[in-house]
């Protein structure tokens, strides 16, 4: 019987405001017996209270994570929030992970919805990465005082995400009332947590993105630079090698490069 009752509860709190009729239909759908159905019908108002509580908690979790995206969506947010709850609902134990689940659900739908600005998925991702990166598990900080070699790999901090946006959403003002439109250009961004636990953002060139991406995949430093240069259509010149050395020094300064590692 618990399964039947929790099925009704879930549909009530995640679905449209229940009426006497819709509640009766739900009870029937979940095979709740007549006695329990009648008792639930008597508690319709209180079921609506639970609906408000559940939705209030989830909405608050989203507003802490993606306030600017919600503001730009305006009334459309409610439409997608309702769809998310009714069609998928959160799967996570952690309220901080509700926003990424909401965005993953919405991303394919927004592509086909002309009412949603094309940059909104990028903005949502950019906003939610702040909490995600601030909370990523990591090993205790501390640099390994050994030099890097071209044959070896490079250990990077676990508290980072390497992302690409189609719009420069990271340049938008933090003000929720801001409605300026970001420029359309490919952006590669390294979002990382500093040793002081600040979430920071570093825009990368395509070459730098390629190097970091390959190092994260476990390539040796030499192979990462070579692969990234080939991908960017550059020869492995002095300038490329010098640029790679500068990038690694900068990342070490930021606490992103932790030292040498065995290549995978």
């Amino acid at each position, binding site marked *: 019987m*618990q399964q039947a009752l929790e099925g009704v*509860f879930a549909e009530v709190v995640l679905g449209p405001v229940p009426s006497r009729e819709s509640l009766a239909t739900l009870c029937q759908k979940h095979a*709740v*017996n007549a006695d329990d159905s009648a008792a639930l019908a008597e508690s319709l108002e*209180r079921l609506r209270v639970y609906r408000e509580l559940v939705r209030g908690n989830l909405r608050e979790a989203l507003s802490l994570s993606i306030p600017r995206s919600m503001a730009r969506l305006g009334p459309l947010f409610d439409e997608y929030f309702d769809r998310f709850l009714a069609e998928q609902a959160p*799967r996570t134990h*952690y309220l901080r992970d509700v926003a990424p689940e909401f965005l993953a659900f919405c991303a394919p739908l927004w592509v086909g919805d002309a009412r949603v600005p094309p940059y909104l998925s990028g903005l949502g991702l950019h906003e939610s990465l702040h909490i995600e990166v601030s*909370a*990523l598990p990591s090993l205790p900080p501390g640099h390994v005082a050994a030099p890097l070699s071209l044959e070896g790999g490079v250990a990077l901090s676990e508290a980072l995400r390497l992302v690409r946006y189609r719009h420069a959403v990271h340049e938008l003002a933090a003000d929720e009332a801001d409605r300026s439109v970001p420029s359309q250009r490919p952006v590669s961004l390294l979002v990382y947590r500093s040793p002081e636990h600040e979430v920071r953002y570093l825009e990368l060139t395509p070459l730098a993105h390629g190097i970091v991406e390959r190092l994260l995949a476990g390539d040796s430093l030499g192979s990462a630079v070579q692969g990234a240069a080939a991908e960017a259509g550059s020869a492995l010149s002095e300038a490329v090698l010098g640029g790679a050395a500068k990038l690694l020094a900068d990342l070490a300064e930021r606490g992103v490069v932790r030292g040498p590692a065995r290549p995978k």
Partner: protein
Amino acid sequence: MKTAPTSPRPLGGVGLGLRWDFLEEVVDGPDLPLDFFEVSPENYMRRGGYYPEQLEKLLCRYLLVTHGLTLSIGASAEPDADYLRELRVEIARTRSPFHSDHLCFSSAGQRSLHELLPLQQSRENVRRVAERAKRMTDVLGVPFALENITYYLHPGRAELPELDFLMGVLEASDAGLLLDVNNVYVNSVNHGFDPRAFIAALDLRRVVEIHVAGHSRKPSGLVLDTHGAPVADPVLQLLAFTLSLSGPRPVLLERDNDVPALDELVSEVQALRKIYDESVARYSATGS
């Protein structure tokens, strides 16, 4: 420099629910006149960065006890094995003397509802939930306790009164009781029973901790367990009554919404300590 104890210490006295609103102030400030802090492990599990580091610093100065939110012990599905594994690690990290969660369900299949939802008070649920609660001590590595929740409706027909349901689960599982006297009060108003009679009928030997919190009243008259206001006088009186029957039990102030300044919360905890001392003295004097 103080070092964190390596094994759990017994919980006692009065404490405060740790919230991020004042975490930094607690870490950076002088020692507070509190005996312990309670933490929601979900806020620290499976994460790195600032908050776990701050919590680590507190361990050297305060006793911590864990109180979970999303075990969903009463759901039809078994509790999530990954969650339990991570929870065990977090409990060990905080050296919590025991772990508690709520006698409720908060998930439906794969869907996490993030609210404490009431279970049908049935014999079948007593058997089912008790069997799970019994396993929790082994699964989590520390004694396990269940909290009585606030419920705004009973889902379906109740086969048992709340008291029999609660005690049935605790007795069959041998779990501890985290007695939330604000929840007893809120339920007594919403469902029309005598809160003192309810508490007097409990097996108070099972109580491992007592919670108090604030509540609010909707225009409809329904009282909501909001944790968003100071503890109301009737709840303080009920706390005194409970302690005079149970003897010394750790008392915790919960405040999750409209969180005031830390010194205001500490003052409220100090008022709880006065009630605690007086009530326990009464208990000792009567030789209960």
